[in-house]
C-alpha cells in the first residue's frame, strides 16, 4: 500500500473541484422559497437617529431592525468584546453601521426599497484619524479619553537611566494605513431552519465564533444554531469576526420570517462596509551611543480601532509584542494604545497587528543604520535575538533562531552585499532587506486557558474522518491536515476525509486564525492518530483529544509577562527595485525570501503561501491606498483600490531553512501570517535607497513618492 509520507508531493484535495467550477461558495446556494436580504446602513459617521422613513413595503417584504430583537435577547454581537451592536439603535457611530435589513423575494425591488429608505440624523463631528481621537475631536466616543485599550511592557534598565546615558536620541514617527482584505469572494451568508434549529451557511473562518456571537440576540444557546461553513473564497482575517455582522441580522430576520434568507455583499459594499487592517502610528525614541549602538528603545504605538472594540485589544497586544522585531535590545519600553474613532471597526487581517509594528521597527532601524553609515543588514544582524534571549515580555526564545543562516543564504541568492554597495543612494536602483517573525498561535497560555481546542478522528472501516472546527479558506489546511493524519496513521491520504465543518457534527477546535491551525489543531490530530494507530484493529471507533500545553512556560495575562509565544516563524526578504526617474514609477525587479517555518508539511502549499503573502505585503506597501475622508472611505471598487495583478511583481525566489519544531505536528510551525510580515519593509528600504528619500508612511504610491522627493 503506498503510504503518504510527510515529504511526499501530494495533490491538493480541493483543487480540482475548484478549478472545474464545482466547489459551492455561499452565493451558489439556492434553497426553495428563498428570500434575499440587503442592508440599510448609516450614511453618516456620527449622529443621533431622529427618524427612519421607509417606502411602503410590498406584501412579503420586511424591514428588520433593533425593534425585532426579542425581549430576552440583547442587541450585541459577542466577538471578543461585546460592544458591537447588531443594529444601530438611537445613534450611529460610523458610516455603514447596520440599521436594518430589508428582506424579500426580488433583488431589484429590494434595491429600490433600499434607495428609497431615508434616515434622519442629527449629526455630530466625527473623529476619523488617530490624531482626531487623541484630540477628542467632537468629544470622546468612549470613556473620557477615547482610549479603548492599552498595555505596556518593559525590559532591562529603567528608560530614564538609559536616555540619560545616551549620546544621541533618534526619534521618528512611522505610520501605516488601512488595508482592505479583498478576498475575491465577498462576504455572504444564508440562513434557514431545519428541525426547529437555525442553520446558517456562511463564508467564514470560524463557525463556532458565529454561533457564540449571535445566539444572545434571541436569548438562545449557541447549540440552537448550526453553522455550516461553505467553500470560502479567501478570508485573510476578514472573515474571522466579520461574518457575525451579517449572521446577526439574518438570525433576527429568520426568527420573524421563517424562510431561507440569503445576504451577499456586492464588491462596493464589501469594500466600503467591512472591517480593515488597523491604521497605526508608532513613535520610536531610540537611545544611541557615539558609535551608533542602541542602548534602548522606547515605543508608543497607536492603533485606530474604529467605533467598536471587537478584537482590537488582542490585535494591539500582538502589535506591541512584535514591536522589537527579531531583535534583542538591552532595554525597551513599549506602550500600546488603541483609540476609538468614527470609522468602520478595524479587525483581524493576516498578521493581526504584527505587520504594522514590524514595518515600523524595520524602517526605523534602516534609518539609524544609514545615519551612522552602516549597511542595514549588517547593522540589524548585530541585534538578532538568539535562543534563550529575552523577549520584550521578559520571556525567552525557546527555539534555535536561524536568522544568521537565513541572511547569508538570502544575501548570496540576491547578491545583496554587492548590489547594496554598487547601487548608490539615489541612483534609481535600490535593494532592500528586512527581517521578521510571527508568534504562533494564541498569546501566552491562551490556547490552554481560553481556547481548549478539541479534535476528533473517526474510523469507519478503512476510512478515517477528521472532525474539527477548523476551516479551509484557501490556505491548504484540508490538505495539510489530511496529510498529517494519513502519515501518522500509516495510510493513504485518499482514505482520510475532512469535510467542511458543521458545528453540530464536529468539536470546537478554536478559530482558524493566529497561524494556529497546523501547530495546534494539527498537533491534536496527530495525537489522535497515534492512538488510533495503536488501536487500529478494534473495529470502528473514534478518538477525541484536547490540546495539551507544554509545561514550564509561565505567562501572566494581566501583566503581559512571560513567554508570549512558544514558537515563532522567522523570515527575511530582499526586494530590488528600479525607479523611472520621470514618472516615479517603481519597477520591482527581484524578490527573494527565506523562511523558517519548522518543518514544512507540504512544500507546494508553502510555496503558494509564501508567494501570496509576499505579494499582499508588497501591495500594502506600494499601492493599496484606502483613504477615509470625514468618515467615508473613498475607494469603493477594485478600480479605485488597486491590488497587485500578474504584471506588478516578478517571479519570486524563495527558500526554507529546516528547523523542526518540538511541539508541532511532524515539526511544523504556523506560517500563514509570517509570510505577510516583512516584504513591505524590504520594498520601502529599496525605494528609499533608489531615490535617496526617507519614507515614514505606507502605502507609498507614485504620487506620494513625488511628494517625498519634493521634501527631500
Amino acid at each position: 500500500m503506498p503510504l503518504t509520507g510527510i515529504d511526499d508531493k501530494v495533490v491538493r484535495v480541493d483543487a480540482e473541484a475548484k478549478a472545474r467550477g464545482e466547489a459551492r461558495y455561499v452565493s451558489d446556494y439556492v434553497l426553495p422559497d428563498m428570500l434575499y436580504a440587503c442592508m440599510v446602513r448609516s450614511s453618516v459617521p456620527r449622529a443621533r437617529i431622529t427618524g427612519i422613513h421607509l417606502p411602503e413595503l410590498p406584501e412579503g417584504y420586511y424591514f428588520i431592525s433593533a425593534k425585532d430583537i426579542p425581549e430576552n435577547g440583547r442587541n450585541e454581537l459577542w466577538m471578543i468584546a461585546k460592544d458591537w451592536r447588531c443594529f444601530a439603535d438611537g445613534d450611529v457611530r460610523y458610516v455603514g453601521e447596520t440599521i436594518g435589513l430589508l428582506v424579500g423575494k426580488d433583488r431589484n425591488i429590494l434595491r429600490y426599497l433600499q434607495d428609497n429608505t431615508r434616515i434622519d440624523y442629527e449629526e455630530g463631528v466625527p473623529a476619523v484619524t488617530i490624531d482626531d481621537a487623541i484630540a477628542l475631536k467632537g468629544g470622546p466616543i468612549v470613556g473620557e479619553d477615547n482610549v479603548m485599550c492599552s498595555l505596556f511592557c518593559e525590559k532591562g534598565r529603567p528608560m530614564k537611566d538609559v536616555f540619560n546615558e545616551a549620546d544621541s536620541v533618534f526619534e521618528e514617527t512611522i505610520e501605516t494605513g488601512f488595508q482592505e482584505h479583498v478576498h475575491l469572494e465577498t462576504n455572504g451568508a444564508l440562513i434557514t431552519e431545519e428541525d426547529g434549529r437555525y442553520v446558517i451557511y456562511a463564508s467564514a473562518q470560524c463557525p463556532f465564533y458565529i454561533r457564540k456571537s449571535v445566539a444572545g440576540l434571541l436569548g438562545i444557546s449557541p447549540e440552537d444554531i448550526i453553522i455550516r461553513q461553505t467553500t470560502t473564497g479567501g478570508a485573510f482575517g476578514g472573515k474571522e469576526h466579520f461574518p457575525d455582522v451579517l449572521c446577526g441580522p439574518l438570525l433576527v430576520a429568520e426568527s420573524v420570517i421563517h424562510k431561507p434568507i440569503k445576504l451577499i455583499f456586492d464588491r462596493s459594499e464589501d469594500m466600503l462596509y467591512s472591517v480593515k487592517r488597523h491604521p497605526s502610528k508608532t513613535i520610536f525614541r531610540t537611545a544611541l551611543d557615539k558609535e551608533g549602538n542602541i542602548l534602548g528603545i522606547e515605543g508608543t504605538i497607536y492603533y485606530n480601532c474604529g467605533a467598536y472594540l471587537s478584537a482590537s485589544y488582542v490585535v494591539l497586544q500582538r502589535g506591541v509584542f512584535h514591536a522589537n522585531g527579531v531583535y534583542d535590545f538591552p532595554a525597551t519600553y513599549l506602550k500600546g494604545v488603541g483609540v476609538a474613532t468614527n470609522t468602520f471597526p478595524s479587525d483581524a487581517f493576516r498578521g493581526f497587528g504584527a505587520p504594522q509594528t514590524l514595518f515600523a521597527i524595520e524602517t526605523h532601524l534602516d534609518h539609524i543604520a544609514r545615519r551612522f553609515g552602516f549597511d542595514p543588514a549588517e547593522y540589524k544582524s548585530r541585534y538578532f535575538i538568539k535562543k534563550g534571549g529575552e523577549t520584550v515580555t521578559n520571556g525567552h526564545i525557546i527555539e534555535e533562531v536561524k536568522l544568521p543562516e537565513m541572511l547569508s543564504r538570502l544575501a548570496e541568492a540576491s547578491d545583496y552585499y554587492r548590489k547594496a554597495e554598487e547601487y548608490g543612494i539615489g541612483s534609481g536602483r535600490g535593494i532592500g532587506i528586512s527581517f521578521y517573525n510571527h508568534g504562533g498561535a494564541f498569546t501566552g497560555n491562551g490556547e490552554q486557558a481560553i481556547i481548549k481546542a478539541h479534535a476528533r478522528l473517526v474510523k469507519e472501516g478503512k476510512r478515517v474522518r477528521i472532525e474539527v472546527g477548523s476551516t479551509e479558506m484557501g490556505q491548504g489546511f484540508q490538505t495539510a491536515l489530511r496529510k498529517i493524519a494519513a502519515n501518522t496513521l500509516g495510510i493513504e491520504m485518499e482514505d482520510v476525509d475532512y469535510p467542511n465543518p458543521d458545528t453540530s457534527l464536529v468539536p470546537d477546535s478554536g478559530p482558524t486564525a493566529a497561524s494556529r491551525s497546523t501547530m495546534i489543531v494539527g498537533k491534536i490530530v496527530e495525537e489522535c492518530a497515534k492512538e488510533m494507530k495503536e488501536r487500529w484493529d478494534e473495529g470502528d471507533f473514534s478518538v477525541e483529544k484536547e490540546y495539551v500545553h507544554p509545561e514550564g512556560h509561565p505567562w501572566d495575562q494581566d501583566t503581559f509577562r512571560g513567554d508570549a509565544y512558544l514558537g515563532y516563524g522567522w523570515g527575511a526578504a530582499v526586494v530590488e527595485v528600479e525607479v523611472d526617474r520621470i514618472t516615479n514609477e517603481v519597477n520591482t525587479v527581484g524578490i527573494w525570501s527565506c523562511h523558517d517555518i519548522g518543518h514544512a508539511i507540504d512544500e507546494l502549499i508553502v510555496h503558494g503561501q509564501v508567494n501570496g503573502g509576499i505579494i499582499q505585503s508588497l501591495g500594502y506597501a506600494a499601492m493599496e491606498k484606502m483613504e477615509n475622508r470625514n468618515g467615508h472611505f473613498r475607494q469603493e471598487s477594485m478600480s479605485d483600490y488597486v491590488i497587485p495583478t500578474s504584471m506588478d511583481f516578478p517571479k519570486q525566489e524563495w527558500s526554507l531553512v529546516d528547523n523542526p519544531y518540538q511541539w508541532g505536528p511532524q515539526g511544523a510551525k504556523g506560517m500563514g501570517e509570517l509570510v505577510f510580515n516583512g516584504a513591505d519593509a524590504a520594498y520601502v528600504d529599496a525605494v528609499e535607497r533608489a531615490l535617496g528619500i526617507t519614507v515614514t508612511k505606507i502605502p507609498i504610491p507614485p504620487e506620494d513618492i513625488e511628494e517625498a522627493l519634493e521634501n527631500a
Partner: protein
Amino acid sequence: MHRQIEFRVNGNKVVYSGDPLTRLVDVLRDDLRLTGVKEGCGEGECGACSIIKDGRLVTSCIIPVGACLGSDILTIEGIRDTEKGRCIVEAFRDGGAVQCGFCIPGMVMAAYVLLSSNPAPTDEEIRVAISGNICRCTGYDLIVESIRLAAERGGALWQ
C-alpha cells in the same frame, strides 16, 4: 421592452426572454445555474466572471444579455470535460495554482484562450494574458507555472 434573445451556451441553444439589459453573468448563474462563473466585482475589474464569447475572453458581468444575440458562449462548465479543459484543470491542480479557488474558473478560461492561440507562450505572455484576472491568494507565480505546464503537457493539443 422584452424580446427573445437567442444564443448558444456550451453548445446548447438558449432563448432568453426578459430584460435585455440583464447582465450576462446573472443569466448564466441564476437562470442557467452555471455557478462555475463567479462574480468577484461586478464591474469588469477582476476577471472571476470570465467566459468565452465568440472565441474572445470577456467579463460576463459587464455584458448585457441583449448583446449576446447569436453568440456562441463557453463557460467553465462547457470546457472542463473537453480534452483541452481537462489538460488545464489538471495542470492547475498539479501545479499548485489553486488556493481559495474563487478566481480559478476565470483563470482557466483565460488560459484556454491563451493556449488556443499561442500554444507555447513565454512567462511574460502568460502574465499579460491573465493580467485581467485578479487573484488575491497566490501571488500568481504558481498560476503562471501551471499554465506553462498545461502548454507543455498538452503539446499537440494546442496546435
